[in-house]
């Protein structure tokens, strides 16, 4: 974690080593989020893992991803919620048949 100091004109200077580590360049956008925990600064654009995933796609996969992404983004929030609620796990006793007994050491 880095400590930042707010200057008289409201500017905040990000330490050079952080700029280097995060690959930030002049003009890059950062998001400032007011959360319950305080102010959080997010690097704009895409994180390293998402960027690596995107870069690893072939041209055909990129076209497929774009088409699938459009389909997903066209869904309503209710439809997206339904997708992510599929197969909710029962906590009732009669569902316990798939639980695995741990071996005794």
């Amino acid at each position, binding site marked *: 974690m880095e400590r930042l100091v707010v200057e008289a004109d409201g500017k905040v200077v990000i330490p050079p080593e952080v700029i280097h580590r995060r690959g930030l360049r002049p003009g890059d956008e950062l998001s400032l989020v007011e959360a319950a925990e305080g102010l959080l600064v*997010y690097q704009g654009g*895409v*994180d*390293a893992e998402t960027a690596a995933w995107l870069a690893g796609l072939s041209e055909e996969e990129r076209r497929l991803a774009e088409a*699938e992404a459009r389909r997903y983004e066209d869904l309503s929030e209710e439809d997206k919620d339904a997708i992510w609620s599929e197969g909710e796990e029962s906590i009732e006793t009669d569902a316990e048949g798939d*639980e695995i007994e741990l071996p005794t050491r």
Partner: protein
Amino acid sequence: MSFRPDSVLLDKGVVRRIYEARVRAALGAPPTPLQSEAANVYALLRARGLQPCITEQTAHILERRPPVFAAALLNQTLTLRKARYLRRWARRLRDFVFSPEDAVIIAYGSFGLDLQTGQVGVEAVITNDNHMAINYRTRYAEINERFEAMVNGLTEPYHELKLPHIVTATEALAAL
């Protein structure tokens, strides 16, 4: 806050935001703050060499999504199975006003089984659900007492199990 866990379970909501960050990236659109938060947590965990865990339900959802988005996430995560007594503990957690879904994810934190390594439970569950995290922390002493009472009444491997930390994605990002 110190947060250097060796094992982490991502709840379904966090995985959803990571997935959706990729959907937006495929369209050349920036992620929303929630998506960015989840994706950055994931990236930081991976950069630390951690293989995050997911539940069986999350794995099943991803298996039904287009592989171009879901395959990498499935390959990079470990799917925990349910060890015996997971549901029993989840039912007891309901007494602390957790929803069934919250109770299951917390119970996975103690009774989620990685079949590859034999490891049971994780050190931390990362969630987007602030209400669940706050309720867990507020009532932690009671929950722990109930947990100890349950596992101490079980046979040998079970009474070594622990409760996980419940950490919001925001907290994880600030602490990693």
